[in-house]
C-alpha cells in the first residue's frame, strides 16, 4: 500500500521508521541490550535492595545511552553507502531538516521504546513509584538529546571505515550532562527532595541538543558527500 501524500520531511521520517521496523536490528536490539544490562546488574550487585535503588538511576541511564548507541552508527551510513544520501541531498529537503527527520526517527524507534520499558526494569532495582516516574520522565526528556548528539557523531564518522567503533568515543563525553542530570533527578527523589531543577536542566540540555545538532550534522554530511 502506498503511503498518503506527505511533505518531504514526513516522507523521510516515515521511510526511516519503516526501515527501522523492517531491519529488525534497531529497536529490538536496543531493547534487548537494555533489558539484559538491567537484569545482569542486580545479579552482580547482590540482594542489597537499598544499594540497588541508589544506583538504579545511574545504571539505567548509562544502559539506555549504550543501547541507543547500538543503532546510531547507521543513522546516515546506510544512505551514504547505497547512494540514497546523494538523492536526498538534491531533494527540496534541506540537509538540516534531513538530519532532524533522522534524529526524530531514531528517537521514535529507539529512545521512546527504551523509555517505555524503563518502569518495568525499575522493578528489578526496587524503585518505588515516585523515583520510577522520575526515571521515566528523565528518559522521556533526555533521550532525544542522545539521538541528537549521536547524529553529530554519526555524521562525523560517515566516511570512516569502522566508524562505529569511534562513535562512542566522540559522543559519550558529550552526553555526560544528560546522564548526570537524568540520574541526578532520580537520586534527588530518593533523598526526599524535588527533581524539578535536575529535570529542568536536562530539558534545557535536550532542547539545545535537538535545536543545534541538525546544523552540525548537516555540515558534516555535506563535507562527507564532497569527499
Amino acid at each position, binding site marked *: 500500500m502506498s503511503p498518503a501524500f*506527505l511533505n*518531504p520531511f514526513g*516522507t*523521510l521520517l516515515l521511510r526511516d521508521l519503516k*526501515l527501522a521496523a523492517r531491519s529488525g536490528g534497531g529497536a529490538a536490539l536496543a531493547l534487548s541490550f537494555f533489558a539484559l544490562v538491567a537484569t545482569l546488574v542486580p545479579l552482580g550487585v547482590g540482594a542489597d535492595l537499598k544499594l540497588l535503588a541508589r544506583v538504579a538511576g545511574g545504571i539505567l541511564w548509562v544502559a539506555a545511552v549504550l543501547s541507543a548507541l547500538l543503532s546510531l552508527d547507521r543513522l546516515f551510513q546506510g544512505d551514504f553507502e547505497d547512494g*540514497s544520501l546523494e538523492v536526498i*541531498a538534491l531533494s527540496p529537503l534541506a540537509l538540516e531538516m534531513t538530519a532532524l527527520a533522522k534524529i526524530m526517527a531514531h528517537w521514535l524507534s529507539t529512545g521512546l521504546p527504551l523509555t517505555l520499558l524503563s518502569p518495568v526494569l525499575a522493578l528489578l532495582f526496587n524503585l518505588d513509584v515516585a523515583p520510577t516516574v522520575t526515571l521515566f520522565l528523565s528518559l522521556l526528556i533526555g533521550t532525544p538529546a542522545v539521538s541528537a548528539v549521536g547524529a553529530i557523531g554519526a555524521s562525523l564518522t560517515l566516511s570512516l571505515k569502522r566508524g562505529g567503533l569511534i562513535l562512542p568515543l566522540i559522543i559519550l563525553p558529550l552526553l555526560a550532562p544528560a546522564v548526570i542530570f537524568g540520574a541526578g533527578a532520580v537520586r534527588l527523589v530518593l533523598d526526599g527532595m524535588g527533581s524539578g531543577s535536575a529535570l529542568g536542566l536536562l530539558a534545557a540540555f535536550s532542547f539545545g541538543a535537538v535545536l543545534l545538532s541538525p546544523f552540525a550534522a548537516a555540515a558534516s554530511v555535506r563535507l562527507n558527500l564532497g569527499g
Partner: protein
Amino acid sequence: MRGDRKLFDGLSFRVTAGQALAVEGANGAGKTSLLRMIAGFLAPAAGRIVLKSAEGESAEAEERGKSIGWLGHQDGLKPQLTVREQLDFFAHLHGRKADANALERVGLARQAELPCRYLSAGQRRRLALARLLVSERPVWLLDEPFAALDTAGQGLIAQLMARHCGHGGIIIAATHDPLGLGNESLKL
C-alpha cells in the same frame, strides 16, 4: 583536485536545453568528479558552474541542486522497501505525487510489490531511472547510465534520454559507451 592531484583544468563547456553531453575519459580521469561538481557535492578549486533558467542565473551549489536529477554509481535503493514504496518515497521526497506510469515506462510494473532486495542489478538500475522520471528535474546527471543493463535496458534508457532531451531537458552523462543521441562529447 583529488588530494593534491589536479584532475583537469581549462575546462569550459556549455550545454543548452534539449542537448546531451557525453563526458568521456579513461578511468580516474575525473568524469565522476566533474558530475559531482556540477551537482554541487564537490567544489571546484577554481572557476564556476552556472545554471541559467527562465527564473535567472544560479552559481550557488544548493540552488543548482534543485534542478538536478542524479543517477550515481549506486542506485540509492533500500532492500527492505518494495519497488512501489521506493518510487513513492522518491516522488514524495520531491514534493510530487507518485506517477503510476513510471514503473510501466521502465518495465517494472509487474515487480511493483516486490521488495528491492529481490531485484537484479539491471532491474535496480531501471528503478533508479524511474526515480529520475518522477523527480521531473530538467538536468539529468548520469554516471555510467548503461552499467548493469542488458541490451533491452540500454535501449530503454536511450529512449528515455531522447524523450527527456526532446522535452527540453539537459543530460550530462559520464560514460564509456556512446549515448546514441547525436550528442556532443567532452574528453577529459
